[in-house]
């Protein structure tokens, strides 16, 4: 329904406010994306793209939050320990 994928802006190709466009890399696949609704996003920033249109810029700090509170629960490392042979 709303498949939207995070991608990294590699180049800005049009800076007009309405047709603002950039080349965005999705794990190596590069596509042209309309960036008019993320005016503050620039090269190397990550944006969420749906049908060739950026709907948001990724919040790096928030991206870590779920892992931070999982670590706080303290058991994440034990689970990662290789079980004794």
């Amino acid at each position: 329904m709303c498949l939207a994928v995070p991608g990294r802006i590699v180049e800005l190709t049009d800076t007009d406010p309405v047709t603002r466009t950039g080349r965005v890399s999705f794990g190596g696949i590069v596509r042209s994306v309309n960036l008019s609704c993320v005016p503050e996003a620039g090269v190397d920033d990550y944006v969420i793209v749906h049908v060739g249109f950026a709907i948001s810029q990724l919040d790096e700090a928030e991206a870590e939050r779920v892992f931070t509170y999982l670590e706080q629960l303290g058991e994440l490392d034990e689970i990662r320990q290789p079980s004794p042979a």
Partner: protein
Amino acid sequence: MKYIDEYHDAAAVHKLVAALRATVTQPWTIMEVCGGQTHAIVKYGLDELLPPEITLVHGPGCPVCVTPVEIIDQAITLAQRPEVIFCSFGDMLRVPGSAQDLLAVKAAGGDVRMCYSPLDALTIARDHPDREVVFFAVGFETTAPANAMAVYQAARSGLTNFSILVSHVLVPPAMEAVLSAPHNRVQGFLAAGHVCTVMGIDAYHPLATRYGVPIVVTGFEPVDILDGVFCCVRQLETGRAEVENQYARAVRTEGNPRARQLIADVFEVQPRRWRGMGEIPASGLGLRPAYARFDAATRFALDALPVADSGECISGLILQGLKKPHECPAFATRCTPEHPLGATMVSSEGACAAYYRYRARHAEDASS
């Protein structure tokens, strides 16, 4: 890929499942609204990891699935016109209208093209000034800014051979329809993350308060979905009914103000018929009068008489979480992705398609 792979971390998944087991004390029924979430749940078998007390039911969040038959028939009528180039997202091409689908029209010579973006359809219109280019604008709030931008750019550049056939629907009214149905059993929601990326989360507070249900804005990867279920269960177990934002890396409280303004400039809220659920007031978007010339339904004077669904298909019940695909007698026998009876089997995000693709063996076990 960054911001995806980290959320497939098995240790984090197991940690969340353990936290869920330690939290849940009684049965709970939770609905994930978005077809993309349904797809991830069934694909990764996340529901099978959950403690038995938790039941996930699949919601109406698949725009392909909820598009009424008469709009598919309108699309087919347009695609058959010699002067029209009909552009659409891929998964709309195989949805059965009352007599055929768009791929059949293409096979019979209609100019039907698959587009990744409505802005690509705009380029086609510029490249073919002698043809009428129509884009099938289907989707929830997530897709609305892109469709609005296509119309806005067409108006700004004076393009006269471009129009859109609109089938835009909104999530909050559909959730309210599910909640207010007499036989509703949904006690909490995983809200559609990317809809909230655009629209924000304010529209959900009245629902949470009025119906006393927790609503957790949730992402689409395994860690996101389990984290969303965990946040929802934690609220249910403590008697809370609040809106919570699990997907904060992509969703701000106010959503994307520019995108919301763009949508408000081009579209207005209208009543919409939902396939299998009937008409829901103020549950869709239509073009504002200022952009009426870009509305294919008026430009081509298409009639909009409601068409009844095929009797056998129970997609309406599946979309409201009242039935699961296995409970349909036609599932995986008369109804398959190659010969779909209804939209929930056609769309890759439909619950029936997801079950057929990832769960068909259960159906065989059940029937053998």
